[in-house]
Every structure is written in C-alpha cells, then in structure tokens.
C-alpha cells in the first residue's frame, strides 16, 4: 500500500473518531434537554444554582462574556488554573441579600459523588481564589488556594450543581 493511501486511511480514522465523539456528545445534550421536564430551559452543560432548595438560575456559557477571567498558580503542582471566580458567578445570579458572610455554598459533582462546602465569607475573600477551571473534557472543576481544596483529590471535577443556603 502506498504511503499516501496509508496516510489518508489514518486521517479518515482520526476524523471518524472525532466525529463519533462529537455526535454522541450532541445526542447526550439533546437527550438531557428532553428529559429535563420542568427544567427544560436549562442549556445542556449549564450548572443550575439552587437557593434555599429552589432553582433560581443557572451558570450558562452565554454569560461568560460578563465575567472576568481569573488565574493563579497552585502551589502543589505548580500548575496554572484559569477560569471564573465563584464570587463573580454567584454575584451575577443571586441577590445581594442572599450573600451573607455565613451563607453556605455547596458545589456538587453528582457523577463523581463529590462536593465542597464553603461559606460566602471564604468565597468573597479573593485571596482564596475559589474558582472554576475548565477541565480537559470541557466540564467545570472547582479549585482554590484554600487548604481543603488545594489538591486534585479535593477539587470538585465535573461540577453540575450549586446549592446556596442562607442560615
């Protein structure tokens, strides 16, 4: 077989794999939107925000233009994390009266069975850099300079829900 033919077959295989992944992901998004029922307004991939148990908003990709980018170099692996501060995200969607120093914010990853509980005081302290970084597969992961969110094991990868409770 000639080299050109081999290269063409290789390129077709590569394109086929990429097409397969994107098609399945589009299908997953459509299936999610269909099964959402009462939450049908939620864009696939958006992260719903619940205040006192009621869904009041969703962190939508369309709103990213309204959020400044932030970054920090995490000390354990010396890796740069870049994304959007949870402080900016919550201020964008929630009323100020819900964001008191002792307001509890829970960031959850259902698929990974992980969550992180933070107070608004910790989130609003910008030196803690509590923020979402975009993971390699395009989902959000919560990272921070806080001791209890400093390592990979403690980050909340594949975040899909934010719960806010005002005491």
């Amino acid at each position, binding site marked *: 077989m000639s080299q050109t033919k081999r290269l063409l*077959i*290789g390129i077709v295989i590569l394109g086929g794999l990429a097409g397969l*992944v994107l098609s399945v992901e589009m299908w997953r998004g459509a299936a999610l939107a269909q099964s959402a029922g009462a939450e049908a307004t939620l864009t696939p991939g958006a992260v719903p925000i619940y205040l006192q148990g009621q869904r009041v908003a969703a962190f939508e990709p369309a709103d990213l233009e309204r959020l400044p980018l932030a970054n920090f170099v995490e000390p354990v692996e010396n890796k740069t994390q870049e994304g959007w501060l949870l402080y900016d995200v919550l201020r964008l969607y929630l009323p100020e009266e819900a964001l008191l120093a002792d307001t509890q914010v829970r960031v959850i990853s259902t698929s990974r069975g992980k969550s992180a509980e933070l107070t608004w005081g910790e989130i609003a302290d910008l030196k803690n850099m509590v923020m979402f970084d*975009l993971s390699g597969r395009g*989902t959000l992961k919560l990272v921070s300079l806080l001791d209890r969110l400093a390592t990979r094991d403690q980050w909340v990868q594949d975040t*899909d829900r934010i719960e806010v409770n005002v005491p």
Partner: protein
Amino acid sequence: MTRPAWSGYFSTFQLILLALFSALIVVAKIVLRTPLQLPGHTGIFWMAIMLVATRVVPRRGAASVVGVTSGIMAAFLGAGDFGALNTFLSYTAVGVGVDLAMLLLPNMENLPQAALVGALGHTGKFLVKWVIGVVAQAPVGFLALGLARSIAGYIVFGALGGVLGALTLLALRRAGYFAYLAEKK
C-alpha cells in the same frame, strides 16, 4: 517445566529500556510544565518519548508495554484529575493506540507517518477519558465547543509530539545510536 511462548519476546535489555521510557514519560508529565493552557498540550513530549521507545525497541507491543508500565507508575503517584483507574487506562490507551496505528503507519522516521501515529495514539487517551466520563454520567461540556477544542488539542499536540519523536529518531540515527544498539541486543 516449559516456558510460555511469549517469555522470550522481549529481551531483558529491551524490557529495561521500555521501563526507563515509561519512567521518563511519568517524570516528564510531572516535571515538565509548559505555559500553554490548552487541553492535551502534554502530548508534545509524551508522544515524542513513546515514538522513540517504539524505534529503540522495534517489536510489536513495545508501545503497549510502555503505556501499561507508565500507567501503573502514574496511578501509584496519584497523577491525573479523575482517579487511578482513569489514569492507568488513559496511559495504557496511548501505548495501545500507538501500536495499533503503527500497524498502518510503521515508519516512525517518516515525519507525516510519525505525526499521524502521534495524533492517533494521543486521541486514544482522549477517548478513554471521554468514555469513562460518559459511563460515569459526567455532565456534558460546559462550553458548546469545549469538547471540540479538547479533541483538536489532543490531535494537534499528539501530532507535534510525533514530529518531535521522528526528529529525535533521525538525530539518533545520524549519531550512530542504532548501530550501537544493535550490538547490545
């Protein structure tokens, strides 16, 4: 007692070389940092090392051995965002992907072939991460183009790693390394 048929497939010297390449991949992944904030950027050195390994030990399955060995090491060292199983499988997928791609594109000193093998091998890693995400019902990507950007990153950086590997092999050939190695077997 009869020895299994596969027992002499790799010589001890070749297994030592493959183990060293495996360790090099894990060390490179942990130590080397690039300022790029793009998905799959580590494929540049990852695929380069993998391709050099397949030529230094020119036996079918060499890349898979490097993949499995580096996967075990990386899993024990806690590398990766998604747990030990994900880490082990994704490292293994790179090796298996390279071996499969080399059935079609065997000449790693040819730049276009090496680039494509690098891209295919690195895409194997992406596929494993994605399949595990789908099985675990991970949320769909936050950005509509997030996944497309990830795939493109894995392909481009894998291909660049392949080219870097091919250039390294050409340099090793010019330096007479393969003639030296032939005497060591």
